[in-house]
């Protein structure tokens, strides 16, 4: 993206928010938006850029969650190391999953990821020696930390806001870098026509596995952050299929394969979800399902994709109702 200006402005605005808004609940919602941006971006790397639709990303999130919380509670490793390690653990786990599942194409790949994620969940539920089974893990106190001479207050939202914002930004930046890299070009080819890509000499297996590793790393970071912020991890929460579906939703509603899509998707769905939950007392999932259908039918590029295209045409001076 040539125009870095607006992006830097956006980042500065986000950084300034906690200075002006003190309501802890508002900051909490922002943290949720950042976390979902991270997860949406993670899924987007595999689903949007590589065209491999996964219904099992919860498994990677969950591995990150458990890794971070176990490393802290059992080995005393502080979460700021634990979260990246969680990402690494998720990436490591993704390798065998990828090697197995990438033999399949299209919907078969998707279904196989669903099966894998459920297997991981059933195992986590039953291997009590490793995961404490359904009881899960609870962090009661975070380690003390001093930054710039000041003790960090874990009871306030600011530290978590900062971490979440940084993680979300990292995710968006890495997807931007990916898009312009050679791997990104390979992925575009694979997405359009996998056999054709093979024919041209692209090592599709290697590309897909690498992409999955990146996607898993980001999802694992998200999982680690979840453990760090919400402090309680159990199999149904971090490995449930609902989580996988929400990640897909965010990426699609926001815009498959776009850079800003995950952020818009996260923003949109989080705010709608909160509003619906509070005011209408109707299951917000009804709207999620409806939006998924509406977006695929009318806005296949997602909200961001559509808006971006609209703005780009305005910029280029194309008349609004001219021939597309």
């Amino acid at each position, binding site marked *: 993206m040539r125009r870095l200006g607006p992006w830097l402005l956006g980042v500065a605005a986000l950084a300034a928010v906690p200075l002006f808004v003190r309501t802890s609940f508002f900051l909490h919602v922002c943290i949720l938006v950042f976390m979902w941006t991270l997860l949406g971006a993670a899924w987007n790397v595999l689903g949007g850029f590589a065209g491999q639709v996964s219904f099992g990303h919860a498994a990677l999130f969950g591995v990150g969650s458990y890794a971070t919380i176990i490393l802290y509670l059992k080995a005393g490793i502080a979460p700021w190391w634990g979260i990246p390690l969680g990402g690494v653990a998720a990436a490591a786990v993704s390798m065998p999953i990828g090697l197995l599942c990438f033999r399949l194409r299209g919907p078969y790949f998707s279904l196989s990821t669903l*099966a894998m994620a459920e297997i991981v969940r059933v195992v986590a539920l039953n291997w009590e020696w490793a995961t404490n089974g359904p009881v899960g893990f609870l962090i009661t106190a975070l380690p003390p930390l001093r930054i710039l001479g000041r003790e960090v207050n874990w009871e306030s939202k600011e530290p978590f806001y900062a971490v979440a914002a940084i993680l979300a930004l990292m995710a968006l930046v890495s997807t931007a870098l990916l898009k312009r890299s050679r791997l990104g070009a390979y992925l575009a080819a694979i997405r359009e026509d996998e056999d054709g890509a093979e024919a041209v000499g692209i090592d599709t297996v290697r590309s897909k596995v690498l992409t999955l590793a990146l996607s898993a790393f980001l999802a694992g970071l998200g999982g680690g952050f979840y453990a760090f912020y919400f402090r309680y991890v159990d199999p149904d929460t971090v490995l449930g299929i609902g989580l996988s*579906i929400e990640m897909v939703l965010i990426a699609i509603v926001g815009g498959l394969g776009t850079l800003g899509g995950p952020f818009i998707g996260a923003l949109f769905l989080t705010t709608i979800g909160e509003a619906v939950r509070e005011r209408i007392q109707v299951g917000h999932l009804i709207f999620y399902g409806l*939006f998924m259908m509406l977006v695929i039918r009318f806005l296949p590029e997602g909200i961001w994709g559509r808006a971006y295209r609209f703005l780009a045409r305005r910029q280029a001076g194309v008349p609004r109702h001219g021939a597309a």
Partner: protein
Amino acid sequence: MEAFVQSLVSGVLTGALYAMIGVGLTVVFGVMRIINLAHGEMVMLGMFGAFWGHTLWHVDPFISLLLWAPLMFAAGMLIYRLLLRKIIPGGELNTLLYTAGLSLLVANLALFIWTGDYRTISLSYAMLPMRLLGIVVPVPLAIAFGLAVIITGALQLFLARTDMGRAIRATSQNTEAAILMGIDVEKVAVVTFGLGTALAGAAGVLLAPSLYLYPTVGEILIVKCFVVVVLGGLGSVPGAIAGGILLGVVESLGAVYASTAYKDGIGFLIFLLVLLYRPSGLFGVGKS
């Protein structure tokens, strides 16, 4: 020995119902290459149809099949016409995701309207199970099994002997050739989707007296359905029947002789293994 036979019988009976659910999905896939993730919700709607028919109008669920099957058929045709037709050209994945959205919508709408309370249908003639040679056979399950056999038999006849049936099979085998032979593929698609939905609804009606009803039951059923359909080979009706029974038996024996806690995991494992190593199904009759 008795435990083994009992386990086998239970497995076959349950398996037949899994098969009925799977048959609808596989027929739709065979013709249209759609994996309908909302299939579980259609079964759920059939279950609730039977429930409301029994509770409000005192109609025996098995009899209400005559009402719900045609209704679901019509509903299926409408869903295809109004919703899916424009989505399908967008590709398999788009359709998959669209039906995922539809599944979320229908399940949660049902949850909102009918609440999450669990419901059952109690049939006066079905309180005590039958005992045949010392093996316990619950009555509603036995009736459902019998009807399922009849329905799938009728389906097979339909596909083999009628013009529309043949048209469906032809389109399923090779869409382009079917078009060339003058088959109205669009009509076939509408009928097939209606058929798949009707079969799902029928499976739901048959299952209702044996199971618990709640709006999100589709989640569990769709997963079993995938395993069945993949085991038997996507697109193959006899394959789905065999796959269903096989899954029922494996789950039953697995729970008795291995562990109940991992019961669900067993199904997924089989699913994965078949997908990876025998993608055309255990019997090699599926399409990939």
